[in-house]
Structure formats: C-alpha cells, structure tokens
C-alpha cells in the first residue's frame, strides 16, 4: 500500500515538474506522451464539431483559406502538423486552433476582415500556437487538469447569447484556446512569430494591427460583450499594442507588401451575406445592416442584398422603417424583376398597410415567380383576404 502511495506521489511530482520549455515544431523534435494524448482528445472534439451542422460548407472558400495557410508555413512544418482551416457558421468573433493543426474560424470574424494580409495575420497567430506547442505548455501549467477540463464548459454554461452552448460544442480544448487564450507571454510570442510568418509570405505588416483595431472598434460601437479571445476588448488592445511595437522596432523599415483585397473580398462575399443572415435571425439589426453594406461594396448590383436590407427594415419596423424597406425592395426589383423575395416584401408591407390592390399584385407576382415557396399557404391566404376586400 505504501509502495502504491509512493508511486502515485512520484507520478504526481513528475507530472507537476514536466517542463514547459518545449522547442517549436520547426526544429527536429518528437511529440511527447501527454502531447499525443492532447492530439487524440483534439480529434475527438473535432469529430463532435464536424458532425454538429455548424460547419460552413463552401469548397472554394476552404481551398482558398488553406492555400493562404500553406503560404505561411514551410512544407516541413506541414509534415509534422497537417494544418487545416475550417469555417464555423457563427456570428461571434472567434478563431481557435487545436494542437494537431485544425484551425476553426468563425464567419463572424472572417466577415469583418478586409484583405488577405489581415487574414494571414490571424492564421499565422493561431498557427504559432500549434507550432510553438502552446496548448501543451498551458496544460502542463495547470495542476488539476481533469477538473479544469470538465469545468471549462460548465462555467461557460452561465454565459448568455448561446456562448455556453457553443463552448460545450467546441469542447474543452477548443474553449481553452478560444476563450481564456494563453498567457500574455505565449500570446505575445504568437503575435511576434505570426508577424514574422506573414511578412515572410510577402504580406503587408501594417495590416496586422489594423485587423485588431478594426475588431476593437466594432465591439466598442456595437457594445458587444463576448467572452472569446478576439471579441474581448483588453485582449484586442494587447494585440494592437504588440503589433504596433513590432512595427516600430524590427519592422520599422519594412513597409508595403501584398494585401490582395479584391481577391479576398471576392472569396468571402458569401460569408458576409450569410453571416448577416445569422445576425438578422438573432435580431442584431444594426450589425446585419453593416454587413450588408459591406457586401454591397463588393456586389453592388446583387438584388439579394438590396432585398435583404429591405427585410432588415421591415422586421425592425421602427418609425419610418417600412418606407425604407419599400425603397430597398424596389431597388432589388429594378435590378432583377424576376427576384421573387422582393415582390413578397413589397406585398407584405402593402398588405399590412391595407393597400389591397397593390398587395394582391405583388404577392401574385411572388407566387408566379416562386410557385413552390414554403410560405405559399400564407400568401394564398393574404390574396384571398385581398379578394374578399377584408382588412388585414
């Protein structure tokens, strides 16, 4: 019995003493036992995420994002860590990486970026967490690991806005990286090494602090309260300061480089639209509107976007909003008269305003353009009421 106790104490002491000084994956190295276990756990957590229906499916976008990731790391690093970028359909400002190189990026943060240089800043920051083995280091720092892992999600369960549920979904390791972040020292290392990678890949370093300034401004203006690392004001401020200091120091003569704004915006334009849809569903009208305005700078003649602005105003329905909504629906119709939803929006407003003749015409056009619409039964009912001359 005494012997077992001794072995237990020894194991505990050894585990407690496991070094947190680990060389980065860029050098010749071998994974350690606890690291392999973290990889296995990562794979389990990723299975849950990948089958949950939160993955944003866009093959072309996925290829594009993974090409950017490939530019940032030399091939020998990829042989050790097969990096893979996956997009999550979620409005929150979040991105996180598992130690096995699987990097999840939310549509919420992707939609806020302006160019490839900003994207590469975020990817390189996250990739550094994996190459520099930050999760293993953090894990070795935490004394009661099991209790920690089991309480991360539970603690977040009390946080509103669906964040607790999301934390449960992304698992303890994902939550660890994306919510608490790493120590200030490790995050600074990720900033510094990340910047080195993006500059080496030819991107403009001045875009690095701009990304975080932009995100910070967004959360200030929208008075957002998010627990995730990239949605937290002090953590964003730290990033801005770090990158600005690096630019003043070792990169002071390094200006200019690739931004690839046009290619980037072309590749993510659907993400912006779809993320705005999520914002509208959640009733974040102003944020949804900003998203669509950005989308319209890329696709100014897309009837979907004009109609969507109409939807935002129709649903917000504050003073003067219905007239604004009509204007956007009309704009959508003028661009593409065969776009059904704009006719429906117009018909809906006319119906509520008691303009039965106009309502009947617009709703009739909607049904003729979209005869199998899911809301056909509602529309037929409105048309019937218009015919009967009843007031809605």
């Amino acid at each position, binding site marked *: 019995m005494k012997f077992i106790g001794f072995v237990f104490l020894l194991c505990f002491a050894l585990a407690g003493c496991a070094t947190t000084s680990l060389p980065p994956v860029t050098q010749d190295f071998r994974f350690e036992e606890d690291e392999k276990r973290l990889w296995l756990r990562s794979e389990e957590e990723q299975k*849950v995420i990948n*089958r*949950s*229906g*939160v993955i944003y499916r866009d093959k072309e976008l996925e290829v594009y994002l993974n090409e950017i990731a490939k530019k940032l790391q030399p091939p020998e690093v990829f042989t050790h860590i097969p990096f893979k970028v996956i997009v999550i359909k*979620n409005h929150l400002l979040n991105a996180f990486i598992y130690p096995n190189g699987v990097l999840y990026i939310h549509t919420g943060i992707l939609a806020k970026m302006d160019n490839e240089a900003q994207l590469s800043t975020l990817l390189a920051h996250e990739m550094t967490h994996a190459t520099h083995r930050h999760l293993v280091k953090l894990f070795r720092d935490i004394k009661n690991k099991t209790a920690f892992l089991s309480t991360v999600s539970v603690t977040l369960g009390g946080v509103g806005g*669906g*964040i607790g*549920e*999301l934390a*449960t*979904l992304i698992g303890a390791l994902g939550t660890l990286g994306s919510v608490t972040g790493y120590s200030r020292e490790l995050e600074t290392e990720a900033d510094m090494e990340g910047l080195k990678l993006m500059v080496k890949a030819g991107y403009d370093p001045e875009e690095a602090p701009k990304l975080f300034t932009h995100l910070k401004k967004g959360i200030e203006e929208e008075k957002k309260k998010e627990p995730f690392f990239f949605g937290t004001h002090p953590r964003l401020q730290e990033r801005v300061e770090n990158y600005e200091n690096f630019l003043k120091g070792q990169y002071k003569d390094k200006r200019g480089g690739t931004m690839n704004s046009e290619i980037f915006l072309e590749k993510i334009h659907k993400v912006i639209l779809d993320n705005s849809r*999520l914002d*509208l*569903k*959640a*009733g*974040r009208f102003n944020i949804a509107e900003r998203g669509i305005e950005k989308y319209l700078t890329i696709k100014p003649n897309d009837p979907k976007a004009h109609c969507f602005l109409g939807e935002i105003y129709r*649903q917000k*329905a504050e003073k003067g909003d219905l007239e604004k909504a009509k204007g956007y629906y009309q704009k959508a119709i003028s661009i593409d008269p065969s776009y059904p939803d704009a006719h429906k929006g117009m018909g809906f407003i006319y119906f*509520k305003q008691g303009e039965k003749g106009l309502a009947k015409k617009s709703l009739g056009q909607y049904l003729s353009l979209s005869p199998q619409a*899911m*809301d056909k*039964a*509602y529309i037929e*009912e409105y048309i019937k009421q218009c015919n009967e001359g009843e007031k*809605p």
Partner: protein
Amino acid sequence: MRRYIWIILILVVGCAPWTQVGGLYKNESYNFSVELPQGWMRWNKGEHLFITRDGVSLQYIQIGRTKIEDPLKHTKKKFSKGMLPQEAAEVYLDNIASNSNILNLEVIENTPATINGIPGFKAVYTHKNKDGLKLKSIHYGFMVGDWFYSINYHAAQRYYFEKDLKAFERVVESFKLIKTA
C-alpha cells in the same frame, strides 16, 4: 402508526415530480384546458404543461405562454401586437435557429393554422441534439391579447415521432382558452 404511514405516503405522492395523467386538464393560471392522452406523465414543477410517455429524451408535449413583450432567449427580435401569424412564426423560428443547442436545423413546414378558432401558425422542423440524435418537432403558435401561446410536440424522429403524433394532434384539437375575453 398506520395513520402516520398514510400521512407520509400522501405527502410523498403530493411531492412527486411526475404524475400520471389522462382526460381533461385545466390550467387556470395559463387560462387553457386540453384533453390529455391516457397513460402519460405530467411534470409537476413549473406552471406550463409538460407531459411525456416514455421519457423526455424520446417524446414530450409542452404547452406554455409568454408575455408578448418579454424578451426571447436566443434572439433580440420580439413579438408585437398586431403581428400576422407569419411574422410571429418568423420570430419564433429565428429564436430557435439562434439557439446554439439546436444543430442541423431544417424547417420542413411553416404554414397557417387555426387553434381553437384563433389564427396562428404550424411549424415543423428537424434537428440534432449534441449526442447526434435526430429529433422532430411540431410547434403551433398564436397570439391572444398580451400573450403568445405555444403547443409543442418534440420526439425522436425514428419510431417515436410517428407513434405519438396522433395523440399530439388530439391535444391540439382539444385546446381551449378558458376565458376568451
């Protein structure tokens, strides 16, 4: 001694969280009555009606109401007086879609419906829970005065959904507001 045992038994039964139900059920505080299927169990906590036959993870029927102006849990959108049933359905379904616990949501049907003579909506959707179990739900909703009422059926899609669907539809058909003013 026997008298004490009876008192204890009555107290224990009175405190049991689940009670077997069947037949007419009146909920004065929520102002409705329904005919409940025989052999189901009703959860005694909370004022809304919540019944199941085989366990909540397999199927349940829930009837509740909320104040129209009350905030919803997952969306900042709100119900408002004078909303058309389709608009109410839109708010209701967006609240569900914004819930991170609802995975792989797929709305199959969203149609007008009449409940106790009141115009409302019927929405049918499927989704998965975190364990990967596919579930199917029917939600009826309508607004009366200051209240939004919902009558929901929720079951595992395989086997259970079809099995108790008729029982649920009978509950919906029997739904009556006690005071209509």
